[in-house]
């Protein structure tokens, strides 16, 4: 177990280093800087602005300084939004993205697994096709289209919900629906195909022959095996939903981190871009780590620490 975690940690540090470096290079490769403005800034003023953030120094010096600051946990201050620390942005905005993300993940898993299981147990019956039609719809309708339709339908046409915001509990309904439509569909299909496979395997037949009733078979054999791929999917999903809800945040006016991230790129706000990228990287890696550990618990064949790399 310890070796496994150590391995993971080394990999993690390496990945973060690569991430920071690539982001730095790409960021510097796009033309412009944070102080490009439509109205010309006198050269003296521009020089002073660049010097203020060390942008007048050679690139390798900027790079080394940046990595140094990163090691001490200093993400710097925003270059465009005067005087505000990058950490403050993350502190203010991330909780919103997180709350919405967690709600969406729970919704996706509960509804997705339920739909998938129902479809498997009622294979080739009406319930099966209904569930799969829902799944196909969920996969094929992009989340921003879904969001716009939901907003128009349930906030304008039938004013049940607020158009934007994330203040009351009911405000979560529409963005969550938009955000979880795709994962629901994906999880449902995944669960269904796995369940079907498991249901047709020999050990289920054995279990039936032993005289176990459906509920016991379901609980002890089918569920555990059938749900395994869903757990694999959960890692990337968590990272995706927590970080990737930019469009949903935009449409529902949620001041989450995704919105700020996209703005920071348009602004060439270097410190903010780097800070949020590193933070997102951290989340992604953490989510992966926990998926791997969870996998070990569900599938006894995977023994943590005995394998070189825990990914499945």
């Amino acid at each position, binding site marked *: 177990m310890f070796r496994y975690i150590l391995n993971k940690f080394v990999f993690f540090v390496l990945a973060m280093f690569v991430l920071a470096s690539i982001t730095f290079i790409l960021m510097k490769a796009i033309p412009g800087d944070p102080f490009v403005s439509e109205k010309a800034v006198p050269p003296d003023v521009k020089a002073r602005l660049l010097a203020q953030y060390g942008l007048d120094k050679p690139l390798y010096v900027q790079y080394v300084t940046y990595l140094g600051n990163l090691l001490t946990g200093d993400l710097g201050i925003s270059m465009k939004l*005067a005087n505000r620390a990058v950490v403050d942005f993350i502190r203010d905005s991330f909780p919103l993205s997180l709350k919405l993300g967690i709600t969406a993940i729970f919704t996706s898993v509960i509804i997705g697994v339920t739909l998938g299981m129902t479809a498997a147990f009622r294979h080739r019956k009406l319930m099966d096709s209904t569930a799969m039609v829902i799944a196909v719809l969920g996969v094929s309708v992009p989340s921003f289209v879904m969001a716009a339709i939901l907003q128009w339908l349930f906030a304008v046409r*039938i004013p*049940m919900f607020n158009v934007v915001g994330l203040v009351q509990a009911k405000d979560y309904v529409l963005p969550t629906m938009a955000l979880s439509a795709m994962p629901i569909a994906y999880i449902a299909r995944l669960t269904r195909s796995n369940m079907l496979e498991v249901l047709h395997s020999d050990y289920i037949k054995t279990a039936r022959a032993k005289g176990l009733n459906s509920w016991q078979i379901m609980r002890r054999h089918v569920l555990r095996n059938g749900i395994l791929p869903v757990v694999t999917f959960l890692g990337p999903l968590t990272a995706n939903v927590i970080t990737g809800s930019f469009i949903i945040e935009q449409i529902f006016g949620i001041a989450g981190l995704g*919105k700020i991230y996209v703005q920071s790129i348009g602004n060439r706000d270097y410190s903010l871009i780097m800070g949020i990228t590193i933070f997102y990287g951290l989340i992604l890696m953490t989510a992966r780590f926990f998926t791997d550990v969870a996998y070990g618990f569900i599938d006894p064949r995977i023994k943590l620490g005995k394998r070189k790399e825990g990914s499945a």
Partner: protein
Amino acid sequence: MLVLLVLMLSLSTILSACTSSTAPEANKPTETQKPNNESKNDPSKETTAKQEFRFNLATEPPSLDPSLAQDVTSMTILNATFEGLTSTDANSKVIPGVAEKWDISPDGKKYTFTLRQNAKWSNGDPVTAHDFEFAWKRVLNPNLPQTSPYNYQLYYIKNGEAYFTKKIKDSNQIGVKATGDYTLEVELENPAPYFLDLTAFATYYPVHKSAKDNPAWANEANTIISNGPFKISSWAHSSQIELVPNEHYHKRDEIKLTKVTAVMLEDTNAVLNMYETNALDYIGPPFNGGIPSEQIPILKQTKKDELVIKPQASTYYYLFNNKVKPFDNKKVRKALSMALNRQLLTEKITLGDQKPAFAMVPPGINIANEEFRSQVDGNYFKEDIAEAQKLLAEGLKESGLDKMPAFTMKYNTNDLHKKVAQAVADMWKQNLNIDVKLQNVEWTVFLDQRTALDYEVARAGWNPDYNDPMTFLDLYTTGSGNNDLGFNNKKYDDLIKAAMKEVDLAKRQDLLASAEKVLIEEEMALLPIYYYTSITLIKPNFKNIYVDPLANFRFDRGYVE
């Protein structure tokens, strides 16, 4: 299974509830609007209207420190929460602000402002001449932890630039001095007849002395001290700002709104939906995420009373790269400009009642408090396809070409710019048989390429910095940082230089008019297309809330009927 059943059941209940309730619910907004319409006809009922106003600011203001702000989002909040020596009215004309009166020396270089004694900060402290001196010197301070990106707006002040560029060390040499608590003396480098417009601008606002010890004072609502009609009561970053009246404001009785909420939404559809559901009272410029052009004809039908379109003193134009072939030939430039049908373009494409432009300076820009465009005729050329074809042939011959080479036209990524570019390309194809490739470029990259003259033809637009033709005409002098045309013309440069020194207002106007004539009629250094309008939706019972000709959004004297 059970879960699904419950889910399905509840879903169907919701759905059926929706369908059955559609009719009455949908009528709700109109029902609530009725009392408003009735009250419009009966003024006696107005007193009960809630004096609250909500609008969309689109994005987080980058800085609410007047010394550091340089964008329209920040300025909108600053204009409502601060007040300069002067202020401007609905026509962008100068009116007194913190200064009661002022004297100008005959050479136009020395201003003496007398401040009103009842002006107060939101914490009750008096606003004095020292606060202005402190603020202006702060803007020009080269050692400030945060450099003011707009500090060159104060280069008009004697030694302002010299101090910032460290050519002089002593801040007492800067031409601003509080000679008493309520007297401010200002010396300028050159006469600037529009200096009183400048003192109404955010970079010239006073700053409370407590800012000295706290560079981040403008970051949070509870540390901001302001002197304007409103103060910030709460600021949820990237989400919304709430303003309430400043109890200490010297004209407190003129302020009717009790609460103003500025939300930050970027999705145009969501914003329209908010307006539809009465969650916003105003949408439109000067902020991004305004009203999409294709919606305008629909809104003209459905929301006649709420759609307000007003001229704005900004020009939409195309830049020619005056350095590359064949655009270095003025006949070619004139041909391209004369071959367009601007009327058709504004009527069918931009749809916002914009006016075709045949000059650089837009209507609404004043000179000596009179509109420049009504003094100086703005028709420097005519659209004429036959003439354009002739000029093109001659121009190409002079350049040693037998045919117009295909070229690329760049615009910054935006739906409207794309449509305009397509229409222009189409007109050139039809009228002059020219092939144009269109290319959209991300904003910052676009600016970078334009400055580097890395284009052939590129889109541009200009909003005035102050209310004078100079803000449009000094752009393209040789050596100007804004000259992204590669235009170098001695005659033009000399005219602008002379206008900058001229004290006589009539002569100055003639000099500026002659410079514009060189830029457009003689050289066609750029291609004017149209003068902007501001297109807004505002609920009909909100009064005195407007976008002024200089594109400032003003609501400080607004009220609800």
